[in-house]
């Protein structure tokens, strides 16, 4: 209904490493599955403007930060564990995840 995306996601990476590529692919897949049409993804490479890392307190990469909806959650890792990503993003999975 609303055009404003409910999920404004920011993915921090440090260069195009295997982990960052995997994280982006995983994120894209999860969002398409559960949040189709409700999200935006901003990818920030810390190697480019390092100052930004201070504001968001990014130590581990890749880190996914969900902005716009409080509380701000940090999800670290290559997002290969889909269930935990959904918990982190506070999303009720559309198809019940296995226990």
């Amino acid at each position: 209904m609303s055009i404003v995306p409910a999920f404004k996601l920011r993915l921090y990476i440090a260069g195009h490493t295997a982990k960052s590529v995997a994280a982006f692919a995983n994120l894209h897949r999860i969002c398409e599955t559960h949040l189709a049409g409700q999200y935006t993804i901003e990818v920030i490479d810390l190697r480019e403007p390092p100052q930004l890392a201070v504001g968001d307190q990014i130590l581990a990469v890749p880190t996914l930060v969900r902005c716009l909806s409080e509380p701000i959650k940090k999800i670290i890792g290559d997002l290969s564990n889909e269930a935990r990503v959904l918990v982190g993003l506070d999303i009720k999975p559309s198809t019940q995840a296995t226990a």
Partner: protein
Amino acid sequence: MATIKLKVADEKPPSLPKAPTGIVGLDEITAGGLPAGRPTLIAGSAGCGKTMLAMEFLVRGATEFSEPGVFMMFEENADELIANVRSLGFDLDDLVTRKMIALDHVHIERSDIEETGAYDLEGLFIRLGHAIDSIGAKRLVLDTVEALFAGLPNEAILRSELRRLFRWLKDRGITAIITGEKGDGTAITRHGLEEYVADCVIVLDQRVRDQISTRRLRVLKYRGTAHGTNEYPFMIGTSGFSVLPVTSLQLDHRVSQQRVSTGVQRLDEMLGGQGVFRGSSVLISGSPGTGKSSIAAKFLETACQRGDRAAYFAYEESKAQIVRNMRSIGIDLEPWIDKGLLEIHASRPTHLGHEQHLVVMHDLVRVFKPAVVAVDPISNLFMAHDDAEVKPTLMRLIDWLKTEQITAVLTSLTSGGASPSELDDPLVGVSSLMDTWLLLRNSEIAGERNRTIFVRKSRGMAHSNQVREFVLSDKGIDLVDVYVGRDRVLTGSARMAQEAQERAAATLHAQDHERKLRLLASKRKAIEAQIAVLRAEAEADEAELDFIVAEQTLQNTIENRDNADIIRRRVGIARMNAIATGNP
């Protein structure tokens, strides 16, 4: 192995490049500072000063050695840190503005973090790298990186990333301090950071004994360099961190030929006529109320009168009380305090551990640079703690004062009693460190207590072996000869009485003598008179004799002439008769 030798400033170059900390005492112990371009682990329990040590390392690096530094904190935030170090006199805001120091607060809360697969800490590296590059930092503090263990769930990743971090710092040539919380039992740190930081490990410790806490520092490990291995007390004072400086182990301090007056003329006379050597240590021991403080105060006043600076560490009385009490015996300390020549530092002995008192003394002496230092009384300071560490600590103090050519006056309180045995002195064990030892005693005779003083020892000078009475009055301190005689030593009014008695006896004796003299004189006059009479008699007799002789002679002469006349006459008669008769 080479023997461990503590460095004296200008000795042979250190084995490894060192980054001086600028922290008093620490550079001596580590023979020049922390390993340059390598990480050093500072471990210790909460509140023992890790952050302060690390911060001072950065501040001094920036201000004294032109090495900018990054302080990355994981626990406190920047404002808290700035506030905390302001109490040490460091203005971090200013240093940050001048790009000498960069502060970075890394905030981690585990509850915020969801782990979803493989990751690394490249974000931290990038952030650190940026902070370092922004000010051209040569030094770095991570305080305390262990917070990451609480914040990041995967310890295996964290450990490998820490290993990478320290290698990365080494590659960049950053001299880093990593702080770590002390672990349980024998563990140096809770998370085994020492495993990664292998070059230098310094352990801080805070101990409480007899309700007094003492902080200590020990260099546990320092790869590739000699270092002091002992535990050294340290303190966080108003001018920052200071480790009790360890003076050289050699006894090679310069000695002075110059003598300084004690301020009591007759005491100087007892000490070879000139007082004590500059830079020597003087122990004044005695039971309560024997006047130890008074002598110490006089000594300081005299130093000020010479134009020297003097420091008085008082552990019994407050500053105001000392000034008031000393005034009562004619010692006015106030003008010297006003002129800035005298510094009185009064504190309770129990306020700090004895070693920390020493650190305070060191700090003050270093800043104030006095020529004379009095510690009153040193016995309270040290002997409250009955442990074996006291002597080396005191030795360090005395040794250090000697090295600095500071004349030290230390008073020591002995247990009471009219004539305490020498072994009662708690400092008898360290008296061998003292150059001059004055012993004050109370002697109780005839219902009064009087003070006596004698020089128990005084190295390098002829000194009196006499016991003197020591008199405190509103005119000051004076020494009086005691009455010695008939197997007795008398002081005070007994001495005066004895002296008066002797004076009276002497007067009487003198009168008697004069009387005898007069008697003899008159007797002699009598005899002389007699002699004169006799002589006169003799002269008279002689004259008589002469007269008689003369008379006799005259008589004879006359008789002879008469006879001759008679003969002549008779002859004439006969002739006439013959003529007459006709027979001539």
